Structure formats: structure tokens, C-alpha cells
């Protein structure tokens, strides 16, 4: 009897542990993603990024938590006082994601976001370097997954912010945004915790380019 109890105890425990680890990860990610959507202040955003980073550090083999942590940092870099520093921090975390998942379309796309953040420090002198680097990463991102709408969205957004005289503006941005909208409609994430963002940006471009 004792043996049975111990055995069942051990069994239940290991099963619970094994099962729960995956479950726990997905649950934690889902809750962090909820928190990310709800975050409004810079403090709240930073807290979510830290949470993703903790999940990544604890899991050690999952790229998604690092990806989200880097994405949040990269996006908040645009509003940061020291954009270079914030972007460098995002790069450091994204490197961890890339170490686990090579040639990933989403990761490459985030690299481009980081480039744009660096560029915004001094667009006049940095356009050459970071603009070209961003385009390179976006092209690589599209190459890695042609169905991913996000690199197309970033391209459309960048074009929209480029003056017409330089081949930008709505005229060139709109067709690309429409293509991105289509890709977005067809896009099926690999799991509920995989990236799906982008609709707001596309809608914004299409709205202002009516």
C-alpha cells in the first residue's frame, strides 16, 4: 500500500510537473500578452518587458518571451530619452531570441524596428546607415516568411513617412499597406501566443491615405 501511495504520489507529481510546465508557460505568456495590451504608461510597459524577460530566463529554450521583451523595448525606444541606449538594450534581448531561433521572420522584423529607433536620434546623419540596415532586415524577414504581414507593414509605414519627392508618401505606401492588410487577414499564428500584431498600424495608414 505504502508503495502504491508513494508511486502514485511521484507519478502525479511528475505528471503534474511535466504537464504544468508547458501549461504554465502558455498561461504565463497569455497573461503577459494581456498585460501588454493593457499597458499604458511607460512604467507598465517596462514591467511587461521585464516579465517576458523573466519567463525567457526561466524557460531557457523559448524564443517568444525574449522576442516580446525585445519588441516592447524597441517600440518604447522611439519615445525614450536616450533612444540609442534603449535600442541597444532591445538588441541585447533580441540576440538571445535569435540564439534560440535562427532566421526567424518576426525577429528580423524587430531588428528593423530597432534600426528605425537608432535612426530617429539624428535622421539627418543616420539615414544612410540605419535606413539601409532596416531595409536589409525587412527584406530578410520577408524572405524568411513571405506570409508574414509585419515586415510589409513596417515597409509601408516607412514609405508613408518618406516625403513624396523621395518616392514615398501615400501613393507608394497605400498599395503596400493594402497588401499587408491582405496578408494579415490570411495570417494564421502558429499558436495563440505567437505574434499577431499589426492591424492598428495598417488601419492607420489606410485611414490617412484614403
Amino acid at each position, binding site marked *: 500500500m505504502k508503495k502504491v501511495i508513494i508511486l502514485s504520489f511521484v507519478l502525479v507529481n511528475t505528471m503534474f510537473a511535466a504537464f504544468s510546465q508547458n501549461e504554465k508557460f502558455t498561461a504565463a505568456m497569455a497573461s503577459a500578452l494581456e498585460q501588454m495590451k493593457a499597458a499604458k504608461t511607460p512604467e507598465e510597459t517596462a514591467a511587461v518587458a521585464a516579465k517576458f524577460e523573466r519567463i525567457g530566463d526561466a524557460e531557457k529554450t523559448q524564443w517568444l518571451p525574449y522576442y516580446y521583451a525585445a519588441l516592447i523595448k524597441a517600440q518604447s525606444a522611439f519615445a525614450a530619452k536616450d533612444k540609442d541606449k534603449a535600442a541597444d538594450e532591445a538588441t541585447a534581448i533580441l540576440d538571445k531570441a535569435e540564439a534560440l531561433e535562427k532566421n526567424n521572420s518576426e525577429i528580423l522584423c524587430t531588428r528593423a524596428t530597432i534600426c528605425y529607433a537608432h535612426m530617429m536620434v539624428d*535622421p539627418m546623419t543616420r539615414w*544612410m546607415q540605419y535606413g539601409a540596415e532596416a531595409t536589409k532586415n525587412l527584406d530578410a524577414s520577408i524572405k524568411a516568411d513571405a506570409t508574414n504581414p509585419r515586415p510589409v507593414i513596417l515597409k509601408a509605414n516607412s514609405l508613408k513617412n518618406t516625403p513624396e519627392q523621395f518616392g514615398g508618401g501615400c501613393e507608394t505606401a497605400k498599395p503596400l499597406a493594402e497588401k499587408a492588410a491582405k496578408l494579415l487577414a490570411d495570417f494564421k499564428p502558429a499558436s495563440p501566443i505567437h505574434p499577431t500584431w499589426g492591424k492598428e498600424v495598417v488601419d492607420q495608414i489606410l485611414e490617412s491615405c484614403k
Partner: protein
Amino acid sequence: MKKYLLFLVVILTSLSVSAQVKISGVVRNHRAKKIIGASITLKNSYDGTVSDSMGNFSFTTFEKGEFVIEAKMSDHKTVEQKITITKEAIVLNFVLKEEVSELKAVTVTAGSFEAGDKKRAATVMSSLDIVTTASANGDITGALKTLPGAQQVGEQEGLFVRGGAGYETKQFIDGSYVANPFFSGAADIATRGRFSPFLFKGTVFSTGGYSALYGQALSSAVILESIDLPEKSEIDASISSVFVGLGTQHLAKSKKSSYGINYGYTNVGLYFSIIKQKPDYFTMPAFHSLEGNFRFKTKKGMVKFYSSFNAQELGLRRANIDSADLKNAFGLKGTNWFNSMSWKEVLGNGWKMNWSASYSTITDDIFAQIQNQNNEYVSTGKSYIDAGSFTIKNTTNVSQIKSVFEKKLRGISAVRFGSEFWHSYTKIKYSSYYSTLSDNLFAAFAETDLYITNGLAAKIGARVEQSSILNKWNVAPRISFAYKTGKDAQMSLAYGDFYQKPENLYLYQTKDLGYVKATHYIANYSKASEFYTFRIEAFYKKYQDLIKTYPSYNNAGSGYAKGIELFWRDKKTVKNLDYWISYSYLDTKRDFNNYPMQLQPTFAANHTASFVAKKFVLKWKTGFNMTYSYATGRPYYNFQNTGSKYEIKDEGKTKSYNSLGFSLNYLPNLGKPKAKSFIVWVLSMTNVLNQEQVYGYNYSNNGNIKQAITPPAPQFFFLGCFISWGVDRSQDAINNNL
């Protein structure tokens, strides 16, 4: 069995409910200041939090047992603590030590204007800024003249900085000294610099207090850093009202090496035949220039080689001041060959090496003649007139070798040390007199960058020199501090001794001279953000041992300079408009040459100001640039030797200097992604308002006639077209103007 299982479930559930343990505490730095936003992590779990606005943190966990808890904050050292989680709530505090980081730390900036695309946002000038500065005409020195500290001297080349003469400013390319950065020319007409601003990725204009790495510059150092590899291979061609040029840059497929070669021919003959010049040119100024470069990446560094060869000639006649029947003819033929090589390498283990060598050889062949109205040589028998007939053949060779080693210390502090050796040889034939000068100058230097905290840094160094021709040593200490006073703002203090060999002009007369010396004291406050730069700087300079030429050649001269300078640049307030304002107040006197006492030198104005504005109109693909420069009048003197001493026979101040420069750049292929070539049209004009500019006065021998020194023509017009194939430069234009 069921009972047992139930029991088990109850135990498990109760465990998980009761097991929530609260972990809380405070995060501070080592000065007990709260740290906001530090990330607290219970390692190997998901649990943790971020410290709040009071530095407090608090979270709960189900975990039990031995754990490591970590507190992490950027620019701080991460701290880990071991904890055992049982049932009790845990309270623990963290103290994080600040780490000195390059991005956050202050930089010692007293006295220097850094330009270039350093990672720091607050750059003052880029190479595009230089070429789009109206009035500069693409000349580095011309653009630097719009910054505080520099005088608006138009009758001589060079930068006259803070009461210093032009020869007290030295130029360095990749660490190498440039023996003569300007073309040779005739008296009272300033010449251009020989180097294109596009050769350089960074320009540091230091108006005082500079590093111990640089010597033999009493007043100012212009430190130029050449570009690394070009972005792409390309071919360039240019044609303009005064020159034609053709060049190519080739970047290897591996993107690890590149070479380039450029040829340019300048001849102002056509231009001078349309725009009347005051002097009568019998040989139109013409220049050939050929330059080449070769650069390659090494394992962890870079080697750069640059060579530039110029040949030039000119000849002109001007009226003689002593006799209306006579003319002064002046002819010049010259060559200048400059070579520099540099090797930068990261040696590992925190060591870096910077090695450079340069060699220049310069020849000038000058003839000056007193001529009659038929342009024939005449001898008047009057020595003060006949002294205007002579010939000079001059050859100067300068070679320099320099090595600098750097070792990173804790954090970003570093020590740097090294030595350099200059050999210079000059052979001059003045009419029928021969003279040679040869000097070996040895220098050793060491300095350290100490970052005490992110907000306080010091640079302490010293330089020792020995010149064989003077047979004397000098020891020059240099110290500066920088202290961060607030967001984007800092204060700097600098002190240093600077020595320079007397000019060859004096050494031909006697070698029994010592170094001339200046001591700089500088205090500076600057506030710079992405789009604004503000700086105010006060300085005091003491000159000692300046060269006197009367009654004998000696080091008995002295002087001082003090002043306040302001700089404001704004790229944001008005859309697509970039402007800067600089103002310099200078109070200086010196006793040198044949000055009878300490006087304000002829190259120093009390107030100097510049306003520079640039606006790009996207719709027209055209950039409009203007510069307005103003300086109060400069003094002029007529010294007469009364037999035993020099006396001031006449003196005065010139009228104030005003100049409005204008230029525009038109980029027709801008934004055409399919265009095969990139074209820039440049149109520029100096002194648009045709204001009279007087730089000083020349006196006749008897002092009765006073003649104004003015530019050879009141205005200068330029129209040019620059084309490049192979690279889309429109991106260049976009980033410069968005």
C-alpha cells in the same frame, strides 16, 4: 485508498494556497538614492517585478526552497542574493552600484568643437555642413571660421584663434601633422586649404586646452579623421567656373578594402577675364592636384594610406606703394606632396594601438621684381624699393612618425601613452644666400581618462618635447575636468601649457631661441540635445617667450588673450531650417616682432559674430544657405625705426567687417530611384551686398601713403556641377534635410 488520495489532494491544494510567499524590499544605489525600474527576478521561475517610483518592490511566489534572487538595472552592476523560501514573508534590500558607461558619461569638451558622425547626438558640424555653409566655398577653414574663437582674417590663410596668429593653429590628419595645409600664395591674398571636406568623417576644431597627444600648436588644433571605407564604388566628375575634376572610388567585393584616385585642374583664367581683379595677373593662378588613397581592414583594425600631390603657379603685378611709376611683380611656382599612413588595431586584453607616419615635401620657387610701367626690371638705387626685387627657392621636407598605445582600465577609464618623432629639413636660397635648417623633434606623452562617476570625469596628461635645433626641452602639463550638471548639460574646466618652435623665418636669423609658450585656462558650460546645442566658454591665455625681432632676435615677447564665446545651434524650431549663431569677445595684446610694446595685434578684432542658416525646400529639390559674418575693426600700425627703437608713427582701426554669403544647391535627380547619376549644382556668391572690406593698411616707406588691404575682387561667384555615378546620393540629401 480513496482516503489516502483525498488526503493527498487536500495536502497539495492546501500547500499551493498557503504557499504564496510575499517577497518585498527596496532597491537603492550606493549613495542610498532609490532606483526606479530595476528588474527583480526570482531566478529559474517566472516570478519577479519591477521597482516602483519609490524604489520599492513586492511580489508573491509559490516557489519553495533555495533560490537566487537578482536585481538588475541598466548602467548598474547586477546583484544576486541567495534566499530560502519557506512560509515566511521575505524582506530584502538591494544596493546596486553604478557602472560608468560610455553613453552616459560626460566627455571633456572644454575648448573643442567636435564634428562628425560620432554616436553622440550632439554633433556640431558634419562634412555636409561644411560644404553647405555659404561663404566657406567648400573650404574646411572657411566653415570653421563661422564657429566661435576664430577671427575673420581675409588677408592671410589660416585660422587665427583667440588672439593667436595663423601659424599657431596646426592641422592633423589621422594623427599626422600636415606641414602646409594651404596652397602657397602672394602677400595679402588668403589661399584655400588643400583638402576636400569629403575626405573626412570627423573634424575636431579645438580652440584650446587640447590633449597631450598633440603638440607644436600654440593656439589651436584642427584634428581631421579620414573616412573608413566608402559606401559603394563610384565615379565622380565635376565641372565649374574655375575647375574640372575626375575621380573614382573602388570598394572591393569583400568590402574589406578600397582605393581611390582623383585628379583636379583649377584655372581661374576664364573667370578672371570676366570678373575684374585688382591685381594684374600675368600668370593666371592654376593648380593641378592628384590624390590617391588605399585603405584596408585588418583583423581588428584598419590601415589607411593617403597621398596628395599639388603643383601650382601664379604671377601678378600690383602698384608699388613708394613710387607711382613702379610696379611690384610677383611670381610663384610650387609643388606640395603630402603622404600619410595610419594603422589602428585593437590588440586585445583592453589594448589598442594607433600608429601613424607622414611625409611631406614642399617646394616654392618665388621671384619678386620691381618693374617699370613697361613691365621691365628696374633698379632705383633706393634700398627700401630695391628690397622688393629678390628670388626665393625653398624646399621643405617634414617627416613624422607617431605611435600611441591605449589600455582600458576599469569601466571606461583608460590610459594612453606614446611618442613621436618629427624630422624637418628646409633649404632656402634667398637671392644668392643659402641657408638650411634641420631639426629633430622628439616628443613623449601620456594621459589618462578617469571616469570617477558617470557625472565626473578628468583627463590628466603631460607632454615632453626636445628639439635638436633649439637644443631645449619642454614639459607641458594638461588637465581638464568635466562635471555633469543636469540633463544634457555639463561644465568643463581645462588648463594646459602649450609650446611651439619659433617659425623658420626667425630661425634663419638665429638658432639661439627658445620655445614660445602659451598657458590656457578655460571654463565651459554646454547643454546639447538632439536638435539644440548651446555653449558658453570663457578663457584666459597667457603668452610667454614670444619672438621679438628688434633690437635682436630673442624670446622677450609676451602677451595675453581673454574672452567669452557663445554658440547656439537649432535644427528644430523652424521646420527644415538649421541655423547657428556664434559670438566671440576677445581682449588681447601682445608684444612680438617689432612691436614697441604690448598692443592688440593686427589680426585680432574685439567682437566677432556669425549667423549661418540653411534651408532645404523639398518641392524645389534645392537647398538655400546663407552666412552673415561681422567683426569690429582690427587695429593697424605703422612702426618707424627712429634709430634706437621702433615707434608707432600712425595707428588706427579698420572699418568693421561685414559679409553676406549666399549659396544654393540644386539636386535635379533627387528622389528619382531609377536615376543612374546623382547631380548637384552649386551656385554661390560671397559678399552679396558688396560691402567694402578692409583687412588692414600698408604704408609707404616714409609713412605718408597709406594703402588699404582689400580682397583682390569684392565678390566671388561660383557655379559648378558635380556628378557621381554608381551610388544613389539622394539618400545623403534626404538625411541632411529631413
